[in-house]
């Protein structure tokens, strides 16, 4: 049984490699006869059985009209192949944007789907393995945006994988489908997990959630322009009230002195766990508006603060 499954899996891999070779990943796909596959559905198979039964009836009763009727249904079957194919062909599918998320969240891939001229594309079903299917309809030359999501299970640049676009229009006897793969990846950050830091720097060594908030001992050294993502805690509200300008207070002292989040600071954990701990700390520091740098094997991000810095760090973690 196991060997059979193995063989099956091997065949599957072989088959999809072939599919991929025929239709290599890219971000814009137009469906043509090269990448659309057609086969009867289960119901289509049953219908073929009906045709056979009708033919047998016609032969055994020597009934011309039953022959005629059989051929009529048979021809409808044949032409539904063409209609089904036509329903998919000419459709262009572009992956226009992807999002960034943490492991355990949904990675979202935004598509722009455009139908060919003079042609409806109806009842198209988009299926990503293990995800719920989505159904759309397009009028002629219409562009529809569609978000496909995929639950992010692994850190890193994650492509959507094989998307199956299928339709059984018009009568459900024939299925036309295509497998598409796209290049653009969604970035999945590690799952934030609180970790134990062994190596401490400064007073934040034994860091706890409250540990950072030792504001009283900080010395205000000056104001700087507000940048998007700065913590509201640090906005100079008094100044804002009097002058109407947004400034962020800069602190000096130990707490404002640069903290470094380092890969090897954590006592335990494999790579993924360490990245998760780092992720947690990056978010934590950033939320508190602290200035920090990130050091990963081979990657060093100079200390800074604010939203862009946070994202830079998270991306580095995702790709480490």
């Amino acid at each position: 049984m196991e060997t059979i499954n193995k063989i099956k899996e091997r065949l599957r891999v072989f088959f999809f490699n072939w599919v991929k070779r025929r239709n290599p990943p890219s971000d814009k796909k137009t469906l043509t006869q090269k990448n659309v596959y057609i086969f009867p559905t289960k119901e289509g198979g049953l219908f073929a059985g009906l045709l056979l039964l009708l033919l047998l009836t016609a032969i055994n009763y020597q009934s011309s009209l039953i022959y005629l009727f059989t051929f009529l249904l048979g021809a409808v079957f044949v032409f539904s192949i063409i209609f089904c194919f036509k329903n998919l062909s000419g459709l262009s599918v572009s992956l226009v944007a992807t999002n960034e998320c943490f492991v355990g969240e949904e990675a979202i891939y935004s598509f722009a789907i455009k139908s060919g001229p003079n042609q409806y594309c109806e009842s198209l079903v988009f299926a990503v393995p293990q995800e719920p299917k989505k159904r759309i309809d397009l009028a002629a030359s219409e562009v529809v945006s569609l978000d496909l999501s995929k639950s992010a299970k692994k850190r890193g640049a994650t492509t959507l994988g094989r998307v199956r676009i299928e339709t059984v229009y018009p009568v459900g006897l024939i299925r036309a489908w295509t497998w598409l793969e796209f290049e653009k990846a969604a970035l999945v950050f590690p799952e934030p997990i609180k970790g134990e830091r062994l190596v401490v720097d400064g007073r934040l060594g034994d860091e706890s959630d409250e540990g950072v908030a030792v504001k009283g001992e900080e010395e205000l050294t000056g104001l700087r322009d507000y940048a998007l993502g700065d913590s509201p805690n640090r906005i100079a509200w008094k100044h804002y009230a009097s002058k109407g300008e947004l400034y962020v207070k800069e602190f000096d002292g130990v707490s404002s002195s640069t903290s470094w989040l380092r890969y090897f600071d954590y006592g335990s954990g494999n790579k993924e766990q360490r990245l998760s701990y780092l992720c947690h700390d990056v978010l934590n520091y950033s939320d508190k508006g602290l200035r920090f740098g990130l050091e990963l094997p081979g990657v060093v991000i100079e200390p800074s603060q604010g939203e862009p810095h946070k994202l830079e760090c998270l991306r580095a973690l995702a790709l480490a």
Partner: protein
Amino acid sequence: MKRQPDKLIPQSSLFTLLSAFIVVMLPHYANVSSWLVILSVLLLLWRSSIVKGWLDYPGRSVKTLLVVASVVGFYLSYRHQFSVESAVAFFVLSVSLKLIEVRFIKDCYLFVFILLYLCACQFLFSQTFLTAIYQITASFVTLAVLFSLHKGRLDIPSKIRALEFAKLVFIAIPLVIIIFMFFPRIAPLWSIPLSTGKAYTGISDSMSPGQIAELTQSSERAFRVSFSGDIPPQNQLYWRGLELDTLEGETWRSSETPAQILLGRLDEVRTFNTDDKDSYSVLIEPTNNRWAYALANSSLASTNLMLSDRGYIRFKSNVIQPTRYKLTYEIEKLTGPLSVVNGKTVRVPSVLSPVEVRRYTQLPSSGNPITRQFVSKWLEKGLTAEELTLQMMRYFREQPFYYTLRPPRTRESLFDEFLFDTRRGFCAHYAGALVYMLRLAGVPSRVIVGYQGGELNQQEGYLMVHQYDAHAWVEVWLDGVGWQRYDPTAMVALDRVEKGLREAVKEEGSFLSDNAFASARYNNIAFVRWMRLRLDALSYNWQKWVVGYDGQTQYDFLSRWLGAVSFKSLALIMATIGGVIVVIAFLLLGYSKKRGAVDEVVLEFERFCKSLEKTGMKRVIGETPSQYTQRLAVKFPLHQKALEGLSRIFNDLQYGESRDQDDKARLLDNMKQQARVLAREIKRWNKRHDKSE
């Protein structure tokens, strides 16, 4: 992949579903038990109430009860019958039960498929033009159920939707016609024990007083005949069916058994040629037996026929469909019908074998004393068989005999009373009495039943032979001559033979008197007559070209166009034509709309990749052109610029904003040139590099 939950049938499709059920069921209700009809209608009402929300789906126990009850009911009403009707009734029952269960989209298919099969089954009961139109419409409504299940949610007007569906169905019609014409007709794969329990009108293999008179009240069609040459005169149109050679009491019977039919051999079939002056083709209505009606001295010209060992023309199997057959005849030689001797068709020898003499002079040993005495008086005169026959014919003419469809009932001795007392009767009486007398005189003779005459359809030039043309006449064996036809009815009512039954019973007013609605009764009204002939012509052509388009017709038709056709070449023609049509349809539907530039770009790039395989830089599966050229650039830094350029052009062509065709073509040419030069250079560089290492 996760299993998707079953989807309910959308409300809009339910309406189509119920309409399809009604349309398909209606004609079948005529053929099934009345309790089944009631059950089916009740289930339909129930299902409609579910749609409306008045009632709920039946629970499991109710369903079980329903199934058990209806199966028992079905068993009770159909247990004695294994026929088409019972099979159809079974389908009607199952589809009706399924109706209250159809809930999810996945249930619809089986339901729809059974309905489609039921549409086809109706053709086993009726094959008229109207039936065909009705059933094909019904099947379209049924198919529309599937269509409605899969249509999109776009707000498209229903008119356009209907058009889309019609396109799917009607685009198929040319293909259907061609397949119909060329699809090889195969002989039944196994014998069919199922036959419709339908009662057929027509001649039977026995004749007792009154039987033919019953038939003459039917205006149903027996068969239609087209002659390729001139139509023979009315009084020559004796369509021989079978001989009644045995008299039992007052009933004449045929001693021909099915086994004797089988004993007959296939006569040499003359190739039918429509130019033959002496050929004719008959389209016979179903009779559920194997008799074919033919003029005397006819030879077979189609392969669905054979000759029985008594020289009658028989079908190879029972006629349950309107069937066409072809014959040729020789009008000059009126004597000596064909027979099969030692596998060869010969004229009947002018001598009867002792067995045959016994068969054709058989009589009950007693009865009808007056007739016996009457004949023995004639015998004393020492007349020959021919003279004797003529004497008897004259007797019918000279005595006050009347031709009537309403003969008085006889009490004891049929022939005594008929010949000497009532003297009223129709063909069966005259023919029966003549053979009785001849046999009393020891002359071999037999009653022949079949049809006589036929109504000319002037518009199309064919003959319509109706059941009321059923007739009985006599054949007498004359030594040295063979069987000779005598029709005693003509002695009494010449009109019957010259002009048909209508004229013969004009005064009596008995023509189709039981049948007030038969349009043939109102033939004197010009418009009714015209309409009747028009409709008949339509139905004749329908039957001839569609219903009766069997293996034989197909063979004749195709060989006229293509010369001799074999089964194999038919299949070949079918495949070719089917293929061509599908290809044309693909082209028409815009299959090839956007071939060209895009594919050529990919092709060209693949060629480029392939030519570099020997350098050890094979393109990895899934590698995009940009990734590949970057990898190449690392290994062949000298060509980095060119490689980058190539991938840029490729991407531009493949994914760039739309350019016009000329621009694209120029760019493609450019790319081709670059790719080829680049490949050559790299390969050369690679070779040098290899050697130096």
